[in-house]
């Protein structure tokens, strides 16, 4: 494959990483929470989309919102259960609980969807765009467009809308936000519902690229972690840049060195960045969401 083809692969992969990570970026920026069940929620989004398209005969364009609703509801249930730990910022409990939710989701999905690998085929994933020797699927192009649309909209909502202003208040100082008359609990619920819906959407969009298994999720959560930390915690723009950079790095490293060591190499880069710029690539900005 040519170098240019690798760049295209990297750009698609990078937008996929960014899209998968966006919910966690907001979660970490606003509520200072982690969600180690994130990868399994990605899996849930992929399987709900697959089930809707393959088994229920729902058009792909409707399957995606279905997956988002289920992902969002799952996020709400998780937040309901973890609300006390959220307000206490009890991160150890939250880490363990979200890890637990991930495994419960794994087991539940295996029971419902079976444990064999499946292929989610969409009208977009079976058609290719070719430019001379270069090619990508329409699904790949849709991932890039969707990721850009989600990031631009989220950034706009945070910076310019009334809801965004309230969310930024909660992100910066939840106690002071209460005194501004904000129901902080509902903001936390909203952020968790967004996290669930966004990662389920990403699952439905990205899953057609590869076979899907109910046991997947670990790689996604690890890559999300790298993107969110590399981008600077809570930084929407940073996550986008980090996602795309990581995608290009993975594609080029895989092609030029060896695909077997890409995750190890990605973490070496992450460690180096954290040593040199402890706040990630958007260092210099304090906690919050922006």
């Amino acid at each position, binding site marked *: 494959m040519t170098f240019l083809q690798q760049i295209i692969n990297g750009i698609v992969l990078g937008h996929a990483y960014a899209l998968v990570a966006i919910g966690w970026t907001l979660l970490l920026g606003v509520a200072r929470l982690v969600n180690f069940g994130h990868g399994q929620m990605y899996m849930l989004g992929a399987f709900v989309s697959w089930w809707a398209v393959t088994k229920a005969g729902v058009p792909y364009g409707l399957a995606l919102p279905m997956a988002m609703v289920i992902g969002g509801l799952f996020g709400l249930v998780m937040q309901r259960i973890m609300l006390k730990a959220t307000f206490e910022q009890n991160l150890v409990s939250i880490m363990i609980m979200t890890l637990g939710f991930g495994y419960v989701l794994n087991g539940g999905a295996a029971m419902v969807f079976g444990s064999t690998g499946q292929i989610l085929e969409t009208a977009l994933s079976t058609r290719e765009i070719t430019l001379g020797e270069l090619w990508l699927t329409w699904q790949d192009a849709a991932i890039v467009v969707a990721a850009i649309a989600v990031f631009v909209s989220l950034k706009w909502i945070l910076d310019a809308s009334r809801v965004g202003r309230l969310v*930024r*208040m909660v992100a*910066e100082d939840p106690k002071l936000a*209460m005194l*501004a*008359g904000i129901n902080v609990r509902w903001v936390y619920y909203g952020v968790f519902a967004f996290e669930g819906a966004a990662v389920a959407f990403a699952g439905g969009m990205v899953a057609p690229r590869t076979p899907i298994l109910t046991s997947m999720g670990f790689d996604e959560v690890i890559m999300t972690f790298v993107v969110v930390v590399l981008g600077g915690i809570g930084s929407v723009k940073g996550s986008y840049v980090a996602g795309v950079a990581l995608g290009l790095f993975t594609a080029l490293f895989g092609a030029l060195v060896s695909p077997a060591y890409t995750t190890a190499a990605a973490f070496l880069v992450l460690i180096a960045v954290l040593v040199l710029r402890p706040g990630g690539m958007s260092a210099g900005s*304090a906690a919050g969401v922006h």
Partner: protein
Amino acid sequence: MSAPVLELKGLQVSYAGNRALDLAGLAVAPGEVVGVVGANGAGKSTLVNAVAGWSRGAPRVAGPITLDGERVDAWPTHQRVRAGLVLVPEGRVAFGRMTVEDNLSAAFAAPPAPGRRVYSRDEIYELFPRLEERRLHLGAQLSGGERQMLGIGRALMMGPRVLLLDEPSIGLAPKMVSQVLETLRALARTGLAILLVEQNVRAAIEVVDRLLLLERGRKVLEGPAREVGDDPRIAEAYLGAAA
């Protein structure tokens, strides 16, 4: 005097089992400014925080609190704020990463009601012209006095019935202290009830109607400012605070 807008009957607050405040009762009428004074640790902040149902710590609060005759002590903070019980806390009152303009945006539309004046952002700028000059600056770039103005401004935009202020003069230049306190006096003339915690007793006496002296969580003196202002215990608290 008209019926009190804020009334407490037997308020007890403790932190981790230690009693920080035990107040038999307190009432604030519309248009009245009540000053709460006392040495460090007397329970002044504990009092206003408990009324707002708010704290950066984890206190246990017991005792009925009524706003316009309605019990509010089981309500969460944001609900009390929306009902008009608005606190400007000690210390951090501005969102440092937001512009002055964004800081001055209300999270809700306060319902218009008699005795509830909801200020617009422009009216806040009129009240504190300095904030308009700095409207595009971030909260973190403001001076202490400007932050206090911002905190009071945001509170007024929520249409307070009762304004609870925790040491608005702390860290301010003397000229700024008198400006902030005079503003409060002017607000009270519009019918706003104010409960003001103040270390600076001498400045507080100038603007409050009534003075409440706390000592180790208990009320030791209460009365009209001009009557109790000369009480040696007040002077003692003042000297104690100044030392």
